[in-house]
């Protein structure tokens, strides 16, 4: 499986965020996306998900399931946790597992992996920010999808949980998965490519302002 982009351009609100972006990512490979605030890291991930329009260029997935769109083969871990405060930890995870059609909706193992199995009946409203993030990560473990798109995955996680996330990512890569992660810190992946988004075009727009 190979995900590649050629001459990818992103426009948000009439402003060019990045242009002429190329990358190629094969099975078992990871790429960390770096860049200043507003450089388009999140926009790039949302573009792969299919939530932001590709202004120019192409995104190609080779070797994926031809029956499915690119967006249907990715796990997107965004800034928002997509949890309902009035539902319990177990109900939240069971919903996403069921919605994504997990064959065996066994949520015990993923919850145990992120260390939330004792809170299974607690309403998500009472979770801390880090626990909410861990519950979102459990979603990636509960349903198998080949491409992980992680937007600042380590924010709000404590050191132990960050290391744990590193292990999940290494296991995913070892199983032939792909990872794209936007981050400012270290992810604990040894041989990840780096993709740096510069803001040349964006800065020019800013300087042109009176």
């Amino acid at each position: 499986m190979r995900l590649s982009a050629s001459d990818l351009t992103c426009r948000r609100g009439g402003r060019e965020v990045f242009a002429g972006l190329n990358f190629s990512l094969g099975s078992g490979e990871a790429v960390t996306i770096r860049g200043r605030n507003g450089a388009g890291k999140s926009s790039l991930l949302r573009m792969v998900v299919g939530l932001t329009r590709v202004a120019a260029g192409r995104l190609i997935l080779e070797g994926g399931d031809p029956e499915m769109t690119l967006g249907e083969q990715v796990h997107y871990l965004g800034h928002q946790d997509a949890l309902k405060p009035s539902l319990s930890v177990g109900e939240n995870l069971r919903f996403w597992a069921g919605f994504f059609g997990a064959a065996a909706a066994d949520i015990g193992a993923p919850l145990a992996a992120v260390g939330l199995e004792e809170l299974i009946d607690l309403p998500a409203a009472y979770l801390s920010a880090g626990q909410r993030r861990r519950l979102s990560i459990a979603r990636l473990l509960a349903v198998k999808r080949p491409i992980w798109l992680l937007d600042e995955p380590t924010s709000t996680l404590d050191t132990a949980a960050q290391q744990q996330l590193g292990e999940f990512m290494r296991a995913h890569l070892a199983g032939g998965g792909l990872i794209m992660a936007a981050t400012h810190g270290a992810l604990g992946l040894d041989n990840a490519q780096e993709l740096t988004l510069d803001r040349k075009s964006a800065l020019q727009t800013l300087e042109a302002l009176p």
Partner: protein
Amino acid sequence: MNPLAAILVRDMRIAVRVGGGALIGVLFFLVVVTLTPFALGPDIALLARIGPAILWLAALLASLLALDRLFAGDHEDGSLDLILTGRAPLELIVAAKGLAHWLTTGLPLIIAAPLIGLLLDLDGRAEAALVLTFLVGTPALTFIGLIGAAIAVTLRRGGLLLAVLVLPLTVPVLIFGVAAANAAVIGPVPFGTPFTVLCALTLASLVVGPFAAAAALRQEME
């Protein structure tokens, strides 16, 4: 589990939990109808004559109440992004959410209507007709409302815009719903004539609503 069943079960759970909108609609309905006799005075003949219209107006406003949170909640917490990465077509997901909304706000109105009809001195025949028009007409209110809810999804105070957008579209449903209920009591038109039109309006909204709402959502998510 089927993705649509998962959405349906989740939305119904959220609606009946604390902060959900399930009981708000039916309570609002009861309050509005209860206030009417106080405003109009104890003229039983008048109340019985305008009773169906009052009940229909109250039901229309009550079904709008929880509607603005239908997609806005999922948009704000990022659920909508993930729903779009699912394999189920957005049109069917919108329809499943509409069904969940109707089961938690429309159905309680239908159950409460006969009880509250007593306050307006409706006889058995009028109540039966009214319940029948509610059963057929309230799904149309929800599914027309889906369109407004989808258009207002990114707005912070979408509720007001929603009412302005949706209420004009519900006028035909209101006209034929009240006409059918009145026809059963007063005549001279047979009950079947306006009732058939009401059925047609509902069927059309069941088809058009999800497609229009899904198109609006896709546009908003850009």
